């Protein structure tokens, strides 16, 4: 093997290259196992216009190693596992009361400012109090009938990670 090719493939110091490769493998395995970065493909229209049907993104649990989920975060929510998940936006935090009045979200009776909400909505739903470990999640596309839209309370341990644009 020519020297330049050998350097290209295994580096100047094979032992160091081996250690680097081992570290990289460990990082990849741990990253996958702990959902540090996971590729996702969106299906459906409930997060329009923010996330298009068929678009590809990444989800990461790393932000939630540092802090708890925040209002406005777009998160993936596991069902029985993580191969198919819901993608929703957090609008209500633990302990808050969430309601919908003529398409506006009320948090503890105050209107929530939602700059991401571009499509008109007429949803009116009575207030609901969240438990100490519950978040309220909903899609951005509330122009669709509420009965066609999957949303509601979710427990913290179902939130896998935050979507990276």
């Amino acid at each position, binding site marked *: 093997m020519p020297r330049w090719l050998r350097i290209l493939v295994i580096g100047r110091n094979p032992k160091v290259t081996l250690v680097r490769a081992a570290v990289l493998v460990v990082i990849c395995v741990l990253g996958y196992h702990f959902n540090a970065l996971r590729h996702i493909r969106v*299906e459906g229209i*409930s*997060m329009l216009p923010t*996330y298009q049907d068929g678009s590809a993104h990444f989800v990461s649990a790393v932000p939630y190693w540092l802090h708890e989920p925040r209002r406005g975060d777009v998160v993936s929510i596991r*069902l*029985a596992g993580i191969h198919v998940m819901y*993608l929703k936006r957090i609008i209500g935090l633990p302990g808050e009361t969430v309601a919908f009045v003529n398409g506006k979200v009320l948090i503890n009776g105050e209107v929530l400012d939602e700059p991401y909400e571009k499509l008109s909505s007429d949803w009116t739903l009575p207030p609901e109090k969240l438990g100490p470990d519950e978040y309220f999640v909903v*899609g951005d596309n509330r122009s669709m009938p*509420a009965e066609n839209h999957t*949303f509601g309370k979710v427990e913290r341990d179902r939130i896998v990670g935050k979507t990276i644009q």
Partner: protein
Amino acid sequence: MKNVSSFVLLAALVALGVWLWFVLSPRPEKIIRQRLTNLARTASFSSGEGNLAKLAAVENVAAYFATNVEVDINVPGRVQHTLMGRTEIQQAALGARERLSGLKIQLPDINLTVAPDKQSAVADVTVDVSIGGERDSIVQEMKFTFQKTADGWLISRVETVRTLSSAILNFAPYRAPFIVTA
């Protein structure tokens, strides 16, 4: 050299024994996963199925369930069924095959817990259902309870899991309009 050869041969024999043991006496987890996967495959169908094939498939689907099974499927706005016993399951399965142009059931996630006495198990399952002619699939989390019987592991109860719960939304979840696939 002779010692090394003997050691390699012994290791190979042990590996073969372990492999045979797993093949001949599979763990309950493996059996139940296989049964769920086979059930999904058996319950799926495409258009153009003959009457005899329909009846045979319906019989096969029912065989996965205990005679006194309870099935409570509640996907508000979409499906609300409570079935009791194999006969009602057969009727429902036949009705689906008569009405729908096709059905594809997939189980992308199976989360299984076997009881310590190995006589029962609970499977938390993500069910992905595509109906022929419809663009969006229905994704729903379901819980299957298994009992070990003389006929093997049979499903004794099926119930809907509300992943996103809401007292104000008796109709949610309906379709899975927004899912992601990792």
